[in-house]
């Protein structure tokens, strides 16, 4: 029976990673590492780990500075698999740990499985346009796992195991400040209808016309990555895609979005996709259920009127 390590960004993710580890190997021995305090680590035991370590955020060092310590432990314990949260700090740690252990990493893995011949799994390529099927025979294999990869494991406080808090190695990077992000005001996840806008809009005040459209059908607003990150017209929680939100609404209405694979990946599971784009050949049109070719400035008012009439 091989050992599985789980390294989590928070306790919610810990429960997902614990369930994921158990699904791969129901009786495997799990060691948990969690960003947080000893109470968070104890949660790891309740979720089924036999040993759990707290990796509290150091006051003035990077959280990733625990990596050399974890590499040392991994060399001693030889886990077959190390599952980490697909969150930024854990991704960085996964990569550094992989380098120190000469171990490969399946990023945002799907369908991971342990076989007598090694580990196999799927990763996305070309922004989700393709799915690569890969295998490895490496002694230790890493994978980053999405927060929604499976249902979380159930905690059972009566379970027992060892709990400890680790101290990071000193590094050359000094954290001088941490500025929390503004409170999230969005829940795209639960929205039945979502209207997404892209660079087909030419200025921020164009948003008003699309907001009116979203309002007419009770939809949440979303956007492509450049609209949030580059133009900053909308908060980053609202951008859709492989590096943003992945949603499954009943309706996704894309306005002025070209539909590159990286964006499309975030809405591919929507029930109905509608695209409005002035370029008939835009990928968003070709991968939609219905599309209208035209300038959104003309199409949006017509849609508001038509939606109001049904």
């Amino acid at each position, binding site marked *: 029976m091989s050992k599985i390590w789980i390294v989590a960004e928070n306790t919610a993710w810990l429960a997902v990673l614990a369930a994921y580890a158990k699904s791969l190997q129901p009786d495997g021995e799990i060691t948990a590492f969690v960003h947080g305090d000893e109470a968070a680590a104890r949660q790891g035991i309740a979720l089924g780990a036999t040993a759990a370590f707290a990796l509290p955020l150091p006051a003035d060092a*990077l959280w*990733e500075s625990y990596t050399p310590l974890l590499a040392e432990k991994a060399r001693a314990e030889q886990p077959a698999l190390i599952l980490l949260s697909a969150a*930024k700090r854990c*991704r*960085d740690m*996964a*990569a*550094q*740990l*992989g*380098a*120190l252990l*000469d*171990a*490969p*990493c399946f*990023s945002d893995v799907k369908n991971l499985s342990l076989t007598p011949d090694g580990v196999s799994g799927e990763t996305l*390529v*070309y922004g989700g*346009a*393709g*799915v*690569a*099927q*890969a*295998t*490895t025979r490496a002694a230790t294999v890493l994978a980053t796992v999405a927060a929604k990869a499976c249902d979380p494991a159930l905690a059972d406080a009566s379970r027992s195991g060892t709990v400890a808090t680790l101290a990071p190695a000193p*590094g*050359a*990077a*000094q*954290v*001088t*400040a*941490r500025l*929390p*992000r503004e409170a999230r005001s969005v829940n795209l996840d639960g929205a039945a209808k979502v209207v997404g806008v892209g660079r087909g809009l030419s200025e921020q005040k164009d948003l008003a016309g699309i907001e009116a459209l979203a309002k007419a059908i009770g939809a949440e607003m979303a956007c492509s990555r450049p609209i949030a*990150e*580059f133009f900053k017209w909308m908060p980053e929680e609202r951008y859709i895609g*492989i*590096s943003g939100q992945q949603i499954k609404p009943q*309706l996704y209405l894309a306005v002025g979005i070209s539909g*590159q694979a990286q964006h499309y990946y975030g809405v*591919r599971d929507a*029930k*109905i996709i509608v695209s409005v784009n002035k370029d008939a050949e835009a990928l968003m049109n070709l*991968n*939609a*259920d*219905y*599309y*209208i*070719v*035209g300038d959104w400035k*003309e*199409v949006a008012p017509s849609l508001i*009127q*038509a*939606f109001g009439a*049904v």
Partner: protein
Amino acid sequence: MKKIAVCYKWVLSDADIRINERTRELDMEKCKPQINEYDRMGLETGVRLKEASGCELVALTCGAATEASAKDALSRGPDAVYCLDDPVMAVADATATSKVLAAMIRSISDVDVVICSEGSSDQYAQQVGPRLAALLGFTSVSYVSKAEVQGDALLLERKLEQGTECVKVIGPVVVSIVPDICEAPIPSVKQILAAKKKPSIKLGLADIGLSADSVAPLLHVAGVKAPLSERKAVRLNPDGVSISEAATALARQLAADGIL
């Protein structure tokens, strides 16, 4: 700061991928190679840090048939470019790429700041920057959305799920940037002409002391398939149908589908 090295990947553009409907395989025939989109912001970040610090700036890449990238890379500001060009790198994974880049950086003297981007448009594994740092024994600072020079130090801002983390680093560092760090300007004619006079150094694995075996990928890709899409792609305003008629048709359709 002595020398900045920006790593870039020479990737096939994904805009022209065709899907073979029968086999679900990706047909890359029409796809042209280009400097990975986010690495262009990495190159521009290098240029800005060079201007602020007065140090040298080089670019490096590794892969198969990468020599063709040299002119484009040079026109974006570096003083020289190193292209490791070897057919075995066609199947490189992040483990192989980071080992090769690490060996290249060791072979170029004085590099103390390495810039990578968050990820490449093909694999997007988000691995190479931090791996490179661990292999070189440099500090890894990833997801960086702002970088400034302050004397000997770099002041960096990381964009994390929880918010912004401000980091001060003195000494060797690998900075992995996110694309919103800056815009990547399109090279001017003057820059393109100047690029022709700058050195471009082609390397093979042997030049950096590596064998093909030592950079064999650890992840073996058995195949790549496009996921099935079953969308109908119905154009609601074909010739002769006005936009308002199309809008009405859509509203009716969505009502019939139980969405509105």
